[in-house]
């Protein structure tokens, strides 16, 4: 049921959110996350960012993450849009939007999908800084964020 896209073009968050509610009367909540390129990462000024991905596997990984969210929470629909190629500070990289009857499910699933996307979907960032280009290193905080969701409950107290 999830809608997943990988594209070089910018996306419009409003259009993605509207698509989740359009023509429906049972959606009570849409939780959305938009991730953007910051001009500062780990202390270095970032002038440009290039996103590489693994075509085919990316879409499959995103769909599997959405399917896992659908199994954990009571959701109506989901959309994930991830950009690839060259990006600049201020550009949106990723959008995750989740619709549900109630807000608790929508919030939890949206955060879950982002946390899992950050550790499981095959995208890699290369930054251009004053001291040259560098591949962004994976952060242990992202692993910890994803690990919250494993275990017995849904990762919350």
């Amino acid at each position, binding site marked *: 049921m999830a809608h997943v896209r990988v594209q070089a073009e910018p996306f419009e968050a409003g259009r993605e959110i509207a698509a989740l509610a359009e023509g429906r009367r049972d959606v009570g909540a849409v939780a959305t996350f938009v991730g953007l390129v910051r001009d500062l990462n780990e202390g270095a000024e970032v002038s440009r960012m290039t996103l590489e991905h693994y075509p085919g596997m990316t879409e499959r990984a995103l769909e599997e993450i959405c399917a896992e969210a659908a199994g954990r929470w009571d959701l109506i629909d989901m959309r994930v849009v991830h950009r690839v190629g060259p990006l600049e500070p201020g550009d949106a990289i990723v959008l995750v939007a989740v619709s549900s009857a109630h807000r608790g499910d929508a919030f939890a699933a949206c955060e879950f999908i982002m946390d899992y996307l950050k*550790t499981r979907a095959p995208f890699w960032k290369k930054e251009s800084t004053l001291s040259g280009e560098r591949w962004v290193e994976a952060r242990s905080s992202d692993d910890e964020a994803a690990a919250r969701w494993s275990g017995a409950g849904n990762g919350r107290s």
Partner: protein
Amino acid sequence: MISLLYFASLRERLDCAREDFALPPGTPTVGTVVDRLRSRDGRWSEAFAPGRAWRVAVNQRMADLATPLKPGDEVAFFPPVTGG
């Protein structure tokens, strides 16, 4: 034969994006292939050194050293992901 794919920093370090690879005889696994790659030269043995963080996917699903391989499989090696 199987296909080996390399992404991001691993592709740059090895200067290789894709290659065809003769599947070793017996009951080959990802581990069998990695052992062969490590034996190529210093660049390869360093890239796949035990302490180094890399990930592997077989047919576009996350896998590990024990994952069995069969002819036609697509095996991808890459650093930990950093999207989003």
